[in-house]
């Protein structure tokens, strides 16, 4: 296992000119800065364009300039976890975890070392027994955990995640949020979520996206370091965040933070 500090995780900058979907302008003249080595959570209503921002950063959509703070190209430094698990049905869970290394034509020693890591990560997300199972024999939650492990085994300094815990039951979600926070420490993480509490537990910084074309709210930095425990102060913050997301008038959140 590589210590998190050794991973050079640069900050990111995304400048979107215009992004349209089925004739609607989702995003126009928007700039997103993601601080390096920290977790940023992106909140907002469905269809506001959160996933699209993630895809723009991953280089999957045209129409934006993306750059790293260290000035180096982004290729080969990003791991992306989509909303769908995208597990290949003909590969076992373990082989699915190694897909990236297979696709890059990694040499044997690297594969063997990564296989060890894959098994370790599967155990961490509670899928140790399912390493040899085929994806279609797993539940939706288990498949999502396998996708999470596949994203982590890539071991990349920048991690983009689209609702990574949405298919999990409340208890598993809580546990995996803690695991993920540990495993992602020191990396530049942008996490899209619908859950204010999830964002408050995991994010060094929270950004709320709303409107059409969408605007980004100012960064919200809750006190303490993630993973935060859900104490009354955090829950009170969650309530206010929910109000804001629901469009109700409330005091600016920076004051609360």
């Amino acid at each position, binding site marked *: 296992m590589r210590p998190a500090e050794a991973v050079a995780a640069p900050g990111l900058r995304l400048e979107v000119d215009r992004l349209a979907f089925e004739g609607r302008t989702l995003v126009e003249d928007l700039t997103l800065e993601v601080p390096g080595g920290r977790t940023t959570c992106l909140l907002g209503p469905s269809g506001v364009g959160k996933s699209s921002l993630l*895809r723009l950063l*991953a280089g999957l959509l045209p129409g934006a300039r993306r750059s790293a703070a260290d000035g180096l190209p982004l290729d080969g430094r990003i791991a992306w976890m989509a909303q769908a698990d995208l597990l290949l*049905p*003909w590969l076992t869970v373990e082989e699915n975890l190694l897909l990236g290394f297979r*696709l*890059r034509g990694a040499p044997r020693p690297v594969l063997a070392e990564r296989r060890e890591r894959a098994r370790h990560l599967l155990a961490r997300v509670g899928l140790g027994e399912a390493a040899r199972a085929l*994806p*279609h024999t797993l539940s939706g939650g288990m498949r999502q955990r396998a996708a999470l492990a596949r994203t982590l085994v890539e071991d990349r300094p920048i991690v983009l995640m689209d609702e990574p815990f949405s298919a999990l039951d409340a208890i598993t979600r809580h546990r995996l949020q803690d695991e993920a926070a540990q495993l992602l420490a020191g990396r530049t993480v942008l996490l899209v979520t619908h859950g204010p509490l999830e964002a408050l537990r995991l994010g060094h910084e929270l950004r709320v996206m709303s409107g059409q074309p969408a605007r980004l709210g100012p960064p919200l930095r809750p006190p303490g370091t993630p993973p935060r425990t859900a104490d009354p102060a955090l829950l009170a913050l969650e309530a206010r965040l929910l109000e804001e997301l629901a469009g109700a008038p409330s005091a600016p959140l920076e004051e609360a933070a």
Partner: protein
Amino acid sequence: MRLDRLRPLVVAASLLLLWQAVCWATAAPPFILPDPLRVAATLWARLDLILAHAATTALEILLGLALGSVLGAAAALLLAASARAKAWLMPVLVASQALPVFALAPLLVLWLGYGLPSKVAMAVLIIFFPVAAAFHDGLRRTPPGWLELAQVMDARPWARLWRLRVPAALPALASGLRVAAAVAPIGAVVGEWVGSSAGLGYLMLHANARMQTDLLFAALLVLCLMALLLWHLVDRLLRRAVFWPSETLHPG
């Protein structure tokens, strides 16, 4: 469960009864329509002859199926791997399908002779297109999410084709191969009809010319059984090879 297994037998028995009923009702002479018992007796009496010809036809079918499938799959791969190859070959492929393959049969016999090669060529021509079209379709329809994942993973083009697009297209290839297995006997028999000195098609034509309708029916029966057997064999192999459920082919 039990009923499922018995069903083909029930269907076969009903068809035989219907056949017999038509024979009784029309009182047709045996050289027009022989009854099932007469055909069974002929089948038994001339089994050696029929099986010898069946072996020839079976060889033609299997060779044609193997060759046609390999060539069809290879063509689909070539089209998927290279945009330039696709631009040049696609119109040729489509135009080739406008030619009625049956019209080519006499030419094939003229060029390749009365023996095995012209029948195999005929079967290959019939099999090639369904296999190539189905596989190519599958290769074009890789779920976009998988391709995006491969892109973020910096997949090499060759690995993306081989480890992602080809396996994802295997269910489609399998349906192409099932069609191929079903039409392969047609190719071989048409080839035999046009010109040959062996095979079930030849035997049927020969028997027909001599009013040996019972022999024709017996040969036809064996041909049917061979075609069914082939289809089931191919289907079983394909089920084993494509073991994942195809609903997961199109996630999200």
